[in-house]
């Protein structure tokens, strides 16, 4: 049974999670082919913060390679986990994971369209070089989410089987189109490999990409924290939420747009990393109950923690080779999904 923490003491859950996250990030900076001591990490960060002109030898490894990647893992983990929690609130079902219901595939399709089709139409160069892929990915994500929500809503209720089956269809179509694009249409320089879009990777992330991601994710995460109360009411059903004073159409659109934008931007740069949006909210719900006012911020941190651990493992387990991060998240997330599915069997009448 979940531990119910009184509202006034919930702040300590957040403090504890934040502490764990920062400790892990610090530790992850030291882990890699070149072992770096905690003291050296501190020295590098101190030099950078004081804009010191003297830098120690390991500075480039920390500042140019590991830190951007770690910050990205934290951002993407938080974004995916909160997007998952938002969608589960919207769909009133703990199985609504952005990867499973097709939002990630929709974003990936958008990204591939942006990479292949826009240049062929002569739309290239200038700001489009950087912005085209994420914008197309986010547009794809938002479009697909609206579609899935409409398709799985039957008479004011969410039909769980429709939701999951729509996801299967979108994933299948997305996989096929991306596969076709990657192998037949695009040149190698244009597109990442097929496994990037299906399993994701944080390999080679540099500061500019982290910056662009943060421009979308940070406001998205902040806005999400404001949605706790209305999403709690949403769990009773749309009509009930209206009776409780929630502006249902507005909140619905807001949740869809915010969550899909967050998924879209992460997919554009790190591919389809699955199951974080399922596992992180579920761990928090199991531990502290379903109240979104606690769930959303706690999810952001637990998602960041999970992805940071997964990414550190991905770049060290098979070093010097890279393991696809999606392999690791799926190994943990797959059984989680099965467990949830078994718990929800009664609702899944097809």
């Amino acid at each position, binding site marked *: 049974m979940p531990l119910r923490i009184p509202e006034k003491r919930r702040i300590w859950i957040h403090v504890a999670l934040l502490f764990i996250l920062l400790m892990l990030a610090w530790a992850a900076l030291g882990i890699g082919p070149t072992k770096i001591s905690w003291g050296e990490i501190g020295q590098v960060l101190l030099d950078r913060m004081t804009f010191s002109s003297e830098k120690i030898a390991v500075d480039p490894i920390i500042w140019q390679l590991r830190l951007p990647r770690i910050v990205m893992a934290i951002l993407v983990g938080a974004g995916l986990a909160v997007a998952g929690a938002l969608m589960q609130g919207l769909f*009133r079902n703990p199985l609504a994971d952005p990867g499973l219901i097709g939002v990630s595939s929709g974003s990936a399709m958008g990204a591939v369209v942006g990479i292949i089709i826009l240049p062929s139409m002569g739309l290239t160069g200038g700001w489009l070089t950087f912005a085209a892929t994420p914008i197309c990915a986010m547009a794809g994500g938002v479009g697909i989410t609206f579609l899935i929500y409409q398709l799985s809503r039957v008479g004011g209720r969410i039909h769980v089987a429709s939701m999951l089956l729509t996801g299967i269809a979108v994933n299948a179509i997305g996989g096929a189109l991306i596969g076709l694009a990657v192998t037949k249409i695009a040149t190698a320089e244009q597109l990442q490999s097929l496994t990037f879009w299906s399993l994701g990777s944080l390999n080679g992330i540099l500061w500019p990409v982290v910056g662009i991601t943060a421009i979308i994710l940070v406001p998205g995460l902040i806005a999400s924290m404001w949605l706790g109360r209305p999403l709690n009411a949403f769990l009773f059903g749309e009509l*009930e939420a209206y*009776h*409780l004073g*929630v502006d249902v159409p507005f909140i619905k659109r807001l949740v869809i747009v915010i969550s899909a934008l967050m998924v879209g931007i992460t997919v554009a740069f790190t591919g389809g990393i699955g199951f974080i949006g399922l596992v992180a909210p579920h761990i928090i719900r199991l531990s502290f109950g379903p109240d979104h006012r606690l769930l959303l911020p706690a999810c952001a941190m637990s998602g960041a923690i999970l992805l940071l651990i997964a990414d550190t493992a991905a770049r060290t387990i098979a070093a010097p080779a890279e393991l696809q991060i999606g392999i690791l998240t799926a190994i943990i997330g797959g059984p989680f999904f099965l467990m949830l599915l078994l718990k929800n069997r009664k609702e899944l009448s097809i």
Partner: protein
Amino acid sequence: MLCADKVSFSYGRRTVVDNVSLAVEPGKVIAILGPNGAGKTSLFRLLSGGEEPEEGTVTLDGKPLKSFAAEALARRRSVLPQTSQLGFNFTVREVVEMGRLPHARVDKSVDEEAVVEQAMAQADIGNFAERHFLSLSGGERQRVHLARCLAQVWPGDSTPAESRYLLLDEPTNNLDISHQHTCLREARLLATKGVGVACILHDFNLALAYADTCVVLFDGMVRASGTVATALTAEVISDVFGVEATMIEHEGQRVLVTLARPD
């Protein structure tokens, strides 16, 4: 006053509410009766603002319902639905606290915890406040939702000039007979504190015992309306439900009895 004036509503070609007028008055309990599919719940959707009537208007204190923002409306009326689809494991207390949602940022002087506590006591669920909602039986869940609605329209806070309304759609569903009476006594008690209560009921005798006025719907139309004494007669019941009914009096209380019809 919460008023429906000649409202009509249809699903596709089927007209489910046909030219119905009724008024939920502060301090009064109005019962809505009728056979299955007579349009009772659809009428409730119009009264609560969940749907807009195709013809006619629903007004609150003379202003059309749609001119109210969802939150402003929620501070003044709450709705107990027939069924609820809550599938997440909140505790009973957390569900009842949800009723205070529209009031949260309005009046800081209200002791929210005390309101929740009292609402739970009134609905007789105080003894399992910390249990998980999904572990409860159907009747217990119904009482939790009742407590949530009571908390939402709790009188005595914010501006007393604003009348409040409680809409109950078959609140006695799944309840044992003792809790059916408790439920309607609470509704009655709220009415004496100035809340207007509208209540869909299937039991004529609960209506006779607790309601001031009633509306009997049949096929989307009003078949009888007025005070319960004048509108709820054996003739109307026989006519609308197609069963034989007779009125008997016991210690000053009128009781409607339906009789088995010999084939």
